[in-house]
């Protein structure tokens, strides 16, 4: 049986992890390579790197990070943040990434999804969607935001997810902007709605605070994978603890 994936996310800026500096075991707390190795040993199922570097010079460093990580951990790696075209994607894949996630660039030029899928295969292309609830009645409606959540687009998140998949995206990384950062649980309704709407796997993101949050995103939200950052970075829970918790509650998990 296919297991549900538990995915730590590393926000990387100028080659350093910007969240997660409280890892006391690590000599260099902000070192993404050391952190990746630790997550690999703890049993993470995949790693997502989000490059939040603002400058082109800083961007080169994320390539080095991926190269080093891929030499040391033997698990799937996804890289996103600031990828604008097929050659940006190729650069990450050649550095050792297995998948690339695209967000703003895909909204601005949806054909990028098609091009990427044609070049590298749908399994390589993750559509990252930042969604914010804009209506709750008669039915909830979520709007797509771009540019790191700064810019509303007026686009309905459910329609955009469907369209992205039709264009060739092989997976959806769905972040609830309402839930993100609050550690009060994933947006279950959003996750469930998108997960039912698309035929490809959905990674739920934003809001993980306690193990039950991950459980609900998988069971009620019908997510195929759950992403979390803070609860792992700050060692609130180890990946092993979370996996044991989920497994004991009947979720198929790789232990």
């Amino acid at each position, binding site marked *: *049986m296919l297991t549900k994936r538990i995915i730590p996310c590393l926000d990387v800026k100028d080659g350093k992890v910007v969240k997660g500096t409280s890892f006391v075991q690590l000599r260099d707390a902000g070192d993404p390579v050391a952190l990746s190795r630790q997550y690999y040993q703890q049993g993470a199922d995949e790693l997502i790197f989000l490059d939040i570097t603002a400058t082109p010079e800083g961007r080169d460093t994320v390539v080095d990070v991926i190269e080093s990580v891929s*030499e040391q951990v*033997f698990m799937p790696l996804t890289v996103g943040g600031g990828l604008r075209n097929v050659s940006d994607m190729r650069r990450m*894949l*050649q550095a*050792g990434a297995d998948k690339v996630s695209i967000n703003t660039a895909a909204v601005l030029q949806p054909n990028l999804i098609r091009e990427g899928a044609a070049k590298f295969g*749908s399994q390589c292309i993750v559509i990252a969607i930042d969604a914010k609830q804009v209506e709750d009645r008669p039915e909830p409606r979520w709007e797509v935001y771009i540019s790191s959540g700064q810019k509303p687009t007026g686009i309905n998140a459910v329609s955009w997810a469907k369209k992205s998949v039709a264009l060739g995206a092989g997976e959806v990384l769905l972040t609830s902007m309402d839930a993100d950062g609050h550690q009060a649980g994933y947006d279950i309704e959003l996750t469930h709605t998108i997960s039912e709407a698309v035929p*490809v*796997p959905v990674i739920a993101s934003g809001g993980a605070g306690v193990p039950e949050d991950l459980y609900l995103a998988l069971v009620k939200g019908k997510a195929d*994978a759950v992403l979390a950052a803070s609860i792992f970075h700050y060692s609130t829970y180890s990946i092993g603890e979370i996996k044991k918790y989920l497994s004991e509650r009947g979720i198929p998990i790789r232990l």
Partner: protein
Amino acid sequence: MIVIVDYGAGNLRSVTNALVRLGYQPKITGRPQDLSNARAVILPGVGAAADTMINLNQLGLIDPIRRFITDGRPFFGVCMGLQILFTGTEEGGWHECLNVIPGQVKKLPDGQKIPHIGWNQVKQQRDHPVFSGIPDEANFYFVHSYYGEPEDKRLIAGETKYGTTICSVIARENMVATQFHPEKSGESGLKMYHNFLKLIAKGS
């Protein structure tokens, strides 16, 4: 010399990294003559089957790969490197493949998320040296939308359930192929490459 076949597509780096970790120094090459000198060949691959066949053909690699396998020399196909061993695939219309293994590559059945992405168990169907030290039903990392169905069921060394029963490991003497990615499957995956490369040491 261990050769990782470079046909201009896919990410060879992960496979290379895994072999380097195991203490080998693979040669990444797309030259037919390098295959004839190789002690073992690994054929990785992601992307579409038709493109893969076109690329292999342009490099003159179709016959050398076929010959390498039929000569019984150590060969490991990964993911697309498994699928193109079959007679043909229904991916993107019907396309002929290497026909080393009679059988067809089909789309995964509807009713679950496609692609099949993530860690799933491999049920070992029989003993083979590549499974040495790997527990039955160990998890490996999959990412694919199509799967190969060999006519000769005796070739099936491992099976995985996803909507249907997928042949996830093919093994016949020195020919091994996996639908999953050992290089992305943690310690079990590394162990599998290690086991495969030990076949060379046995003088095969």
